[in-house]
């Protein structure tokens, strides 16, 4: 069946892969150009999908080869997929522009390996992300997750230094543990329900729930637990975050930006698909509270550790550990059986706002941190004195991104935290609100540790280690501005997040 607009989904999957094939087969001098040329096209496709979801107010669906599930494999895009696709193509495009000069193939010389690998892996990550956001089949999603991991891990150790190799290996081992647990869960679900298609699973589980006295197969809950824990390891939620700081701080700045902004979010997206898409209205309440408790621990622990870092890139990486925590408040707040539909919808919107604004802000922040390290020749926070006088645009980008992370109005981070906060208060779950406020304070603390010396005087006799071109600084600034301007998005546009999603309020107590 070829649904109108469904071919857009295929195009979104194919564009990055076409880029990879072209780079492999054409002259190495064109590597960066091919990748960069595809990025506007990818953005256009993502926007077209979002526009289609917006106008039809429903999800798009495409059956590969015309075979409907359970025989075939479906691609689906609903509101949250569309938002993720657009965010992905914006951040990947910005990372490409940022890395253009750094990973240019040298003229009149044999092709260099690092640029070739960088662009191939960047496109690989893009393909993997799009496959995760569009996948409708649990096994297909497993393959997409693995594709993402295999592209992300080598990016971490692109420099080939011993410490980045160790960081990449640690990242890979965590990710493999996660995917093995995910696969085991998917297998158990197939055993219990005879399908791997998320929509069919949801229908079969709902049919069971509607029976007079539903007998839940133990396999369902075991599978949900296994898959959730596996995906948490890939999302780096506390206490499974150990791999993230060394991996994200060791990668080249453009790669760190993509890893921190997007790659960890892909597995979070899948947890939401499982908890809200596969089990509509059946979300286990205790489990949701447990996830939020881990998120709260991540916020406090990650922020305090960020406060204690001596290096700028590690500080930014620990801030990612903390900011990921906020996402997990969506589970209890959007699935609270006692909550009104409006309050649950607030939390749902707040969670996705947090995801998108953090993606833009953190990408900007990693780029700014990379530029600061380039101009100083090091990234020790103690030696940041006066850097704002050398690269003012970069420091402004860092500060704006920081404002969004702290949740200062009118940024996107502010709106996200405000929505989550008001949902928590209106549902009587005030303790989560306290953690969110504390997290904002701590974020203010670690960002002032950077900004205060950066705005100070330059040490006498200082010379820059490298000159930073304006256009690279501008990329970071535009992303940071995006994170701030997100707060001005018209309320009507939030509706996009609701299209094509199953009803979420009303969980069963268990």
């Amino acid at each position, binding site marked *: 069946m070829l649904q109108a607009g469904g071919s857009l989904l295929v195009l979104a999957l194919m564009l990055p892969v076409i880029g990879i094939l072209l780079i492999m087969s054409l002259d190495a001098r064109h590597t960066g150009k091919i990748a960069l040329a595809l990025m506007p096209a990818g953005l256009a496709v993502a926007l077209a999908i979002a526009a289609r979801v917006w106008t039809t107010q429903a999800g798009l669906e495409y059956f590969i080869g015309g075979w409907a599930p359970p025989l075939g494999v479906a691609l689906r895009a609903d509101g949250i997929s569309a938002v993720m696709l657009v965010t992905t193509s914006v951040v990947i495009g910005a990372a490409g522009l940022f890395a253009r000069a750094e990973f240019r193939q040298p003229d009149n010389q044999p092709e260099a390996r690092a640029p070739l690998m960088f662009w191939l892996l960047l496109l690989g990550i893009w393909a993997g992300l799009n496959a995760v956001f569009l996948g409708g089949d649990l*096994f297909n999603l*497993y*393959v997409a997750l*693995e594709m993402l*991991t*295999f592209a992300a*891990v*080598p990016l971490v*150790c692109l420099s*080939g*230094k*011993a410490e980045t*190799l*160790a960081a*990449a*290996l*640690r990242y*890979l*081992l965590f990710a*493999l*543990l996660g*995917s*093995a647990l995910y*696969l*085991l869960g998917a*297998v*158990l679900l*197939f*055993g219990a329900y*005879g399908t791997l298609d998320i929509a069919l699973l949801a229908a079969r589980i709902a049919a069971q729930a509607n029976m007079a006295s539903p007998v839940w197969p133990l396999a369902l809950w075991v599978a949900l637990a296994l898959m959730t824990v596996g995906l948490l390891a890939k999302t780096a939620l506390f206490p499974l975050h150990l791999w993230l*700081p*060394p991996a994200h701080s060791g990668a080249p700045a453009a790669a760190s930006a993509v890893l921190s902004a997007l790659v960890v979010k892909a597995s979070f997206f899948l947890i939401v698909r499982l908890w809200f898409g596969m089990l509509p209205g059946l979300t286990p309440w205790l489990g949701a509270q447990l996830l939020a408790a881990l998120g709260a621990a991540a916020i406090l622990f990650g922020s*305090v*550790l960020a*406060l*204690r*870092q*001596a*290096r700028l890139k*590690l500080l930014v990486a*620990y801030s990612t550990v903390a900011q990921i925590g906020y996402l997990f408040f969506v589970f209890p707040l959007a699935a609270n059986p006692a909550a009104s539909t409006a309050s649950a919808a607030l939390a749902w919107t707040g969670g996705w706002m947090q995801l998108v604004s953090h993606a833009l802000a953190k990408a900007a922040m990693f780029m700014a941190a990379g530029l600061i390290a380039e101009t100083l020749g090091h990234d*020790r*926070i*103690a*030696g*940041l*004195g006066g850097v704002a006088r050398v690269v003012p645009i970069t420091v402004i980008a860092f500060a704006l991104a920081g404002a969004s992370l702290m949740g200062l109005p009118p940024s996107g981070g502010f709106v996200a935290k405000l929505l989550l906060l008001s949902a928590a208060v209106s549902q009587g779950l005030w303790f989560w609100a306290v953690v969110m406020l504390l997290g904002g304070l701590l974020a203010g603390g670690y960002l*002032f*540790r*950077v900004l*205060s*010396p*950066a705005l*100070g*005087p330059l*040490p006498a006799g200082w010379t820059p280690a490298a000159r930073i071109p304006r256009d690279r600084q501008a990329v970071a600034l535009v992303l940071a501005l995006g994170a701030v301007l997100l707060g001005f998005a018209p309320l009507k546009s939030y509706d996009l997040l609701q299209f094509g999603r199953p009803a979420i309020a009303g969980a069963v107590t268990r």
Partner: protein
Amino acid sequence: MTAEQLYGLCGAGLVGLGLFGLITAELPLRRIVAFNLLGGGAFVVFGVIARRGAAAGLGGDPVPQALIITGVVVGFAATALAVTLVRRLHEETGTTKFDQDELPPETVKLSDATLSGGNP
């Protein structure tokens, strides 16, 4: 005990062994082997599920069999990537160990992390 139950228990045992190894082993190479055990266990369980779903004169449900083949290929690629990383690490550092309890490098005490502390 039927053959299916026996196979299912074997798969569960492999999963348990793999999980234990992946969490507790110190050498990366052992962890990679443990990951393969864990994956292998999942495939055995999937095979039993295929056997249970046998119908229409077939010895087993063909869908899981096709997925197991794909999973084996993905697991192989993962193992290859991990072993390559271990080898590169060995080339660079002369050891395949990485410190488990490695502290985040260069943390500062909270009391030192004052706002003006960065100025030289």
